[in-house]
């Protein structure tokens, strides 16, 4: 009998070791699946809007977002906090960025515990810094979160306003990224407050008004 055969043959000490290894392997795989699945499920749990809103500080940007087309629109598409603020899982690169983002987000927990923006006044004082941080993050990977849903090539020219068509053609030509122009889409356009000359334009949708109205283009 070969060594291998001895390990798996019943009734001898080698087979008990082999059976043990197999059991450990199978249990390990099962635990691995449970852990990895559980871990990612937990991670996704922290992407839910309810989770974000469990910190009262997030009520301020939430109320602003509710007035926009990303909250309410004709087709009922809803884009939640993590759709813009957390990278997705579509590519390994994205997944890695998500992981890193989640680690960075532990700073938010610390901020919550120390009351960094726990009043309206404190929030407003830090609004610009927080916004700039987000704009830079989005720009650094070419507005991937926007492009997960919006693609230049899929913008139907017959349904797009002429001015938007011209602007997007320019954006493609000049290799611009979405956040270069579309700041203040879902929250207060803080980039406009000091009258800065940076190219920034709120995407207003068909109605261009708040409160949120049905988006005829959606």
């Amino acid at each position, binding site marked *: 009998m070969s060594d291998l055969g001895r390990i798996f043959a019943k009734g001898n000490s080698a087979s008990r070791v082999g059976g043990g290894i197999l059991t450990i392997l199978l249990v390990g795989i099962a635990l691995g699946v449970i852990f990895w699945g559980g871990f990612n499920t937990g991670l996704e749990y922290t992407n839910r809007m309810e989770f974000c809103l469990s910190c009262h500080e997030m009520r301020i940007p939430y109320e602003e977002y509710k007035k926009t087309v990303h909250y309410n629109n004709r087709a009922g598409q809803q884009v939640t906090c993590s759709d813009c603020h957390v990278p997705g899982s579509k590519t390994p690169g994205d997944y890695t960025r998500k992981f890193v983002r989640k680690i960075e987000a532990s700073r938010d927990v610390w901020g919550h515990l120390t009351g960094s923006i726990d009043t309206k006044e404190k929030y407003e004082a830090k609004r610009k810094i927080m916004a700039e941080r987000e704009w830079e993050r989005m720009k650094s990977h070419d507005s991937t979160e926007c492009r997960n849903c919006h693609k230049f090539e899929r913008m139907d020219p017959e349904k797009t306003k*002429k001015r938007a068509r011209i602007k997007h053609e320019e954006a493609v030509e000049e290799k611009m990224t979405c956040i270069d122009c579309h700041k203040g889409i879902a929250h207060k356009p803080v980039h406009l407050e000091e009258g*800065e*000359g940076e190219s920034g334009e709120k995407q207003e949708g068909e109605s261009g008004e708040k409160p949120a109205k049905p988006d005829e283009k959606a």
Partner: protein
Amino acid sequence: MSKSVVSLSVLALAVTVAWNATAGPPDWGKVPAKKIPMFYPGQASYEWAMTKADHSAANQVIEKGRGCAYCHDEDATDIGKKVVAGKPVGNKKKPLEPTPPAGKAGFIPVSVQAAHDGEKLYLRFEWEDTNDSGGKKLDPKNEEKVTVLLDAGGVDGAKLNGCWSTCHNDLRSMPDASDAAKKHAKAKALGWEDGVTKYVKESRTAISMEESPRGGWDKLKPDAEIDAALKAGKFYDLMQYRSGKGEKPADGYVLEARHMDGGKSLTKAEGKMEEGKWVVVFERTLAASGTGKHKIEAGKLYNVGFAIHDDYAAARFHHVSLGYTFGLDNPKADFNAVKQ
């Protein structure tokens, strides 16, 4: 009566009949009409439109030579509606009308026709009367005024912006209007009783585009240079219809100020309101007679902008057109006056 006298009379009669058969206003039913939006611009001055911080496409206007209509022919009406309501617009999302006139239309769709008979140009404007807003009558004498500003290639920017080159941030009723203008040494000569009137930058030594006060109302070039600019055709030819009883039409030009007279080319500017529609017809000689007039000839492309001072409006409270080209028997022009 002698035979020669009779023959001469018959000849004179024949010429008169023939003359009237070919000359005179055209059959407007046969002249193609173009419908354009005329929208409320608020305080959107030339300086505003040419500054990227205010108007995100300013660099495209300069770098790519894009006229206003290139982007705005489809949304001028939306813009007019927002501006007249005092809503935020532009790159900085700020209102362009600090005192929104209640009940005023955001835009007026106007049908424009152009024709000529070899001697005269005929322009016809037709639009549906807007509701009387009941607001303050800024010009109580004239319920409606229609203005045509025509450039023959001499004014910088006119090719892209129509008449916007005349509109500055320091005109009367604009954000940088100066009280000192009424006391200026040349105030009377330039017609600045109510403040600075339209001018083109060819009459100024400098214009401040971004730094307040924007514009250059008081940086007048010496008279000799302004005369030279006039001779070189660097001005807008101006015609204005006024609806008030007894009000005479204006036949002038815009260079260092708005001159409402001096021209001798406008032969008629008549209008009436019938069944809810205003119809205004201008008739002017193709030849340039008087001061500040452009000769209108075939083979040339002119730049043109229109305005309607609707509902007793004055100053900036008018509805304006985007910039268009105009020509005589020129199919390349947006408004092509065809011989009738």
